[in-house]
């Protein structure tokens, strides 16, 4: 009877699954973490590789991969006898509980000595706690939630700036542009997706914006998985702001940008804060509509630092797209790790932690980021992390702010040309 066959098939699949599970952990009887003479350093990478945020997860993974490839090709970790870095990637599915359980698995089963990830703050926040519990250093290259480094954790190191710096920089930029051009933005619209990330941005904006003497004329959270964002776009139109601040993932950023261009909603400027606005897919799918958009981010292909162009070329040759903030963040963080490993001289979490906390790095490819050095304070925050404002010009992301990192060939356009006046 065929039904019996299918049942037995299902059972066999299940049994295989269980065996596989035990198999995954089977060979872990050997020496655990503290082993100096190993041929490889296992790095647990936790990223959202499925679910709605998966595109950014993939981009981040590429950053890690490229850096590791380079480091290994250049002879690995010399202090460890040329040990290679080995990435062990786990999918968080963008879900905190799975992220935590995967962190647990990376540490327990795969015996990673250091962890990194997890892009989303909502996953990074709890998964760093797991690492802390097991005393495994955790490098956070792109999650921005302020609280991540405010819990007194000893094993969490964040190379990127926290959210508070983003929102402050966005507001500072608008104020500076207003002073420079005599067209100060007074009416600000806040448009953000309603998960953790957007909500923490909004909380910070609501402090920073009034402080800078500007008025919030619109506070518009929206569900990241909306089928139609026109209502939000119409609200922006109704509010008639001078300056629009976004916190968006890729899909919603695309819908918003295209919709605003269609509705011809004019303002002095619109600024995203990384995430979707920095995703290469965003540029591809908005075309001319994203022209003159600002985006506050960690990195751009034209950052005036040595190695930037070469790295980006390599990346583009390998993956067909430019690097973006996320991939650059992850890329640079691997160099920070490599530096720490060299100084630790041991593949031991405790020693790596110590080395990381004493990081003072201003060479190597970690410096493709706009900051000039990496140093962690006692909370694990990179105190030198810095941000840049880019503007989309002729379909390219061009660094226009701050002065120190700006692309000499371009000046920020403020206020941006009206949609009606564009060709």
């Amino acid at each position, binding site marked *: 009877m065929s039904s019996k066959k299918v049942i037995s098939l299902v059972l066999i699949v299940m049994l295989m699954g269980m065996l596989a599970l035990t198999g995954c952990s089977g060979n872990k009887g050997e020496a655990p973490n503290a082993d100096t003479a190993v041929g490889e350093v296992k790095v647990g990478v936790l990223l959202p590789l499925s679910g709605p945020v*998966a595109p950014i997860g*993939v981009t981040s993974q590429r950053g890690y991969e490229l850096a590791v490839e380079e480091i290994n090709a250049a002879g690995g970790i010399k202090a460890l006898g040329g040990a290679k870095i080995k990435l062990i990637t786990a999918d968080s599915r963008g879900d905190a509980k799975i992220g935590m359980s995967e962190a647990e698995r990376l540490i327990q089963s795969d015996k990673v000595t250091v962890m990194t990830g997890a892009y989303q703050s909502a996953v990074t926040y709890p998964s760093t706690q797991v690492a802390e519990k097991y005393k495994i250093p955790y490098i956070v290259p792109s999650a921005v939630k302020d609280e991540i480094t405010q819990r007194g954790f000893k094993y969490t190191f964040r190379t990127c700036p926290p959210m508070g710096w983003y929102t402050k920089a966005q507001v500072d930029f608008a104020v500076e542009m207003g002073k420079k051009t005599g067209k100060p933005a007074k009416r600000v619209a806040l448009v953000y997706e309603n998960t953790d990330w957007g909500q923490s941005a909004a909380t910070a904006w609501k402090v920073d914006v009034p402080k800078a003497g500007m008025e919030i004329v619109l506070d518009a959270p929206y569900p990241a*998985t909306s089928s*139609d964002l*026109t209502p939000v776009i*119409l609200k922006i139109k109704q509010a008639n702001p001078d300056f629009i601040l976004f916190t968006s993932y890729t*899909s919603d950023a695309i819908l918003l940008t295209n919709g605003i*261009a269609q509705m*011809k909603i004019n303002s002095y400027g619109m600024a995203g804060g990384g995430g979707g606005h920095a995703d290469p897919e965003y540029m591809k799918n908005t075309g001319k509509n994203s022209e003159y958009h600002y985006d506050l981010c960690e990195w751009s292909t034209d950052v005036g630092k040595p190695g930037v162009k070469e790295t980006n070329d390599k990346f583009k040759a390998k993956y067909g797209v430019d690097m973006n903030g996320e991939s650059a963040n992850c890329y640079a963080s691997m160099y920070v790790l490599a530096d720490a490993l060299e100084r630790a001289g041991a593949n031991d979490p405790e020693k790596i932690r110590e080395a990381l906390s004493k990081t003072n790095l201003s060479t190597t490819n970690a410096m493709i980021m706009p900051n000039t050095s990496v140093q962690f304070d006692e909370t694990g925050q990179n105190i030198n992390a810095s941000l840049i404002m880019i503007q989309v010009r002729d379909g390219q992301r061009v660094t226009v702010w701050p002065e120190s990192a700006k692309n000499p060939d371009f000046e920020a356009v403020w206020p941006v040309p009206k949609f009606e006046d564009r060709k």
Partner: protein
Amino acid sequence: MGTMTEATINGLFMGSLYGLIAVGLSLVFGVMKVVNFAHGSLLTICMYAVYYLVMKANWNSYLTPILVVPLLFIFGYVVQSKIINPVLKREFELGGGHAVILLTVGMMLVMENLCLLFFGAYYKVAQVPISSLTLNIGNIVISVPRMIAGIVSVILIFLLYAFLNKTDMGKAIRATGQDREAVRLMGINDFKIYNISFGICFIMLTLAAALMIPMYYVHPSAGKIFELRSFVIVVLGGLGSLNGAFLGGIIIGLIESVTAQFLSATTAEFLIFLVFILVLLLKPNGLLGKK
């Protein structure tokens, strides 16, 4: 007041598009009394089909149905006859149970994630010239693809309505929904009617996909967003009622578009589910549903 008018117009256009998407769900329920939890992932498949034809073969999105409709009709026909009907048959024989609903839940998981596997997690947007076309009346801006989608949706729903009321096949579909055993006594194969109905559901979804591609992104879970809306819409209008699906679509479109002007979009989402549960509790047969 301009934005209010715009919001209303947008609500109407989106509403009729929602109606078009929901109409297949309602038809399938009306004919075989099955709530298809895979409806959204079917839409996703249709969207990918249209997208690839637009991007890879350079077709005009609005022309893609010529090729995609027959293909997906056949696909729907086969899925129904090979996968759903056997379970449905057993459920008719034994009575009770939620087998078919659960089967569609399984289909949803499989299809959504196969899309993820094959097409990747990336958002795919087909920027075609018409995408950014707008119509300006005074200070009111109307997006052309949205307008086309809204108006064509109404026409398509009307055509489906006419098909069901004027042709023999359409009448047979309606009759099957009313009494599947009596229909067999008329010489009509009820399971074949199910296959055709599921195929028609696919036709409607493909047409909706062709209308959506110029203004919306494709993503493995793109359909899911519309699926929840579709549930709300068909329950609101009355499961199994086409006019109801259209009316429900308009109502949801307006709630989403207009209330978001007073409250936040997040609150509008909350409101939609609140309306959903209230309708379920107070008027489970929907506004136009039949007893």
